[in-house]
């Protein structure tokens, strides 16, 4: 004990250079990133990597490339190659995690759930990334000076005042003036700039209940044509005698939900092809929206016919059967004001009194 103590004091009193260290002081093998930035040449193991990508490298001679014909090679083969993983078929039913035959993940092309894509980089997405997002970020910036403390807010759910013994263990009261809890709007940052999430195209076909189902078939074809997505059909939930619908009896509506690439292409067509050609159209009403960042507007049947996919074979749709539709644009904005800022930046006009 005493010996170790004294040696510690000794080591502290000696100059740094004489103190024995655990590490050998000789040749240092440790490498740092900063050491090899530019002063030394790249190490030998990195030289083995190809600098060019395999897509552009043209080390192959012209003649070899020209003569390569996979179909001819296959034909010339005398014996069939053994079957490969290419023949794998995903099981039709998922029999649980303990079954030996497991389906591949949905991202695997051999899976039954696989959906190919994306097929392009949509223009709307590029415009959003390069122009719209940064502008919204600048527009929504709120400067809080140093020393700023946000004023205390009342709790969203109020507590009971315990004036009655029956208040014990009750759930909290809803907000004053109504029992709807609105979404919390956080300050807009670089990582929560509002963007498009999905678009819903919904079409209620009145004649589907009153006349025959052909109206619904045509509406489904039209919505599928303009949206590039499968439609769902819906039955009526209410009973309205004048529309001759009863709950659960009549299939009256079709709906398509668009996400990702489909949504962006649809939005581009809507804004740049269809909307400028609508006659006497002022824009989307400023009071539209569900006050949590989703904006809805309607298109008349003659406006739906302006979509290029319907125009190209307009004659194949029975006259007067092309449906009108409601288009809901779901954004990640938390208030209608932010959603309207995003949509007007992306080209949708709004008119009238803006209701936030």
């Amino acid at each position, binding site marked *: 004990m005493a010996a170790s103590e004294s040696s510690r004091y000794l080591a502290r009193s000696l100059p740094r250079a004489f103190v024995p260290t655990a590490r050998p002081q000789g040749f240092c093998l440790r490498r740092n990133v900063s050491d090899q930035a530019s002063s030394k040449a790249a190490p030998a193991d990195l030289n083995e990597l190809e600098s060019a990508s395999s897509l552009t490298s043209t080390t192959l001679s012209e003649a070899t490339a020209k003569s390569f014909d996979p179909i001819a090679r296959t034909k010339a083969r005398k014996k069939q190659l053994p079957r490969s993983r290419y023949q794998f078929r995903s099981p039709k039913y998922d029999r649980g995690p303990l079954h030996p035959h497991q389906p591949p993940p949905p991202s695997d092309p051999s899976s039954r759930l696989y959906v190919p894509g994306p097929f392009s980089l949509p223009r709307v997405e590029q415009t959003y990334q390069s*122009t719209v997002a940064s502008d919204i970020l600048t527009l929504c910036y709120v400067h809080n000076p140093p020393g700023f403390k946000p004023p205390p807010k009342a709790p969203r759910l109020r507590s009971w005042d315990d004036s009655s013994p029956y208040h014990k263990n009750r759930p909290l009261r809803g907000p004053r003036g109504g029992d709807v809890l609105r979404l919390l709007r956080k300050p807009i940052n670089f990582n929560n700039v509002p963007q498009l999430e999905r678009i819903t195209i919904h079409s209620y076909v009145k004649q589907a209940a009153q006349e025959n189902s052909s109206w619904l078939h045509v509406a489904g074809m039209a919505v599928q044509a303009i949206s590039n997505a499968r439609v769902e059909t819906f039955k009526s939930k209410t009973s309205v005698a004048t529309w001759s619908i009863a709950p659960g009896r009549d299939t009256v509506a079709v709906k398509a939900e668009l996400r990702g690439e489909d949504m962006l292409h649809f939005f581009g067509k809507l804004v740049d092809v269809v909307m400028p050609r609508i006659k006497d159209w002022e824009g989307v009403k400023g009071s539209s929206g569900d006050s949590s960042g989703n904006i809805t507007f309607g298109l008349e049947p003659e406006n739906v016919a302006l979509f290029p996919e319907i125009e190209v074979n307009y004659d194949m749709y029975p006259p007067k059967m092309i449906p009108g539709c409601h288009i809901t644009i779901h954004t990640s904005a938390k208030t209608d004001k932010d959603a309207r800022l995003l949509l007007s930046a992306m080209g949708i006009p709004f008119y009238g009194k803006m209701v936030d």
Partner: protein
Amino acid sequence: MSSGSNGARRIASVLRPSIADPKVCRSCQETLVRRNYSSAAAQPSSESTSTATTTFPVVKPVYTINAGVALSRPPQITRDLSQFEKAYYFYQKRLNERLALPFTKYFYFKRGTPADEDWKRKIRERQTAARDIGKYNAYSKDAWNDELLVGAVEAEPEHQVEMLVQDAEATVNATSQDTSKKEEIPRPFPRVTEADQKNDQRSLNRALQRTLYLLVQTKEGYWRLPSSPVEQDETLRLAAERTLAQTAGVNMNTWMVGFHPVGHHVYNFRYPRVDKANGTEHLGEKTFFMKARIMAGQADLAANTQNLQDFKWLTKEEIAPYVLPQYYSNIKNMLAER
């Protein structure tokens, strides 16, 4: 936010007690006072006494505050795809062709019409309904052969556009009554413009895929974004608008994005300049850049009041060699990557 309430705000700040924090600017102090009145109400007695006791003049070093404008033209067209993106999208298209249900021809072409005949001829040629994936039959025995060989052009967007246009031309010519003249469908405009080829950096019609920024050259030969000192009782945004009118003229339809600056640049003089009249020490310049977009028009230096020589519309990378390194490192993060 609007500049109209500025006078009213100042009157209100005089009436209200202020928090004298030297790090917080005038308008921010007003914000602090306005927002948490509860905390401000407790403070003023001590603060006002402390400010009243300092009778001798305190000389603070002074910076000139400049308002700068980062006037930009956003990208006009989509960007070029990388080699990998082209190959990936093309692969996905052929894969989709193999997995999707076949094209419902009867819905698009009535039997016996010229359009139907035209369709039959085309499908015999390219064996698929898609017009941009080359000759590929997804339902044949050789459908496995879906990869492109070296030097194939099918994945290039220019080739795909050309195929689409030729297809439309063939349809128009095959279905029209008048067989004597050939219809020409206009090609899309080239993605590289004349200004790009001439490298005319004053033109707004160049580098359509990129964001362009307006740079001006001072009398001394330095390149910088347009800027000028903020005058008395002027907000940053008003100063930026005035700067733009004084430097690049009024022949531009511009839009100032918001009321807050997006970047700033501090320039310190090598030796502080002392003003003889009131003994203040002048240390340098601080420039705050407002973001602006040009909608129409073109910069014009004919009527500028800052003795500017020249202007250029440059992308982010092109700005670097023109401006001083310190200046570029200060502004580069507010410039758009694309």
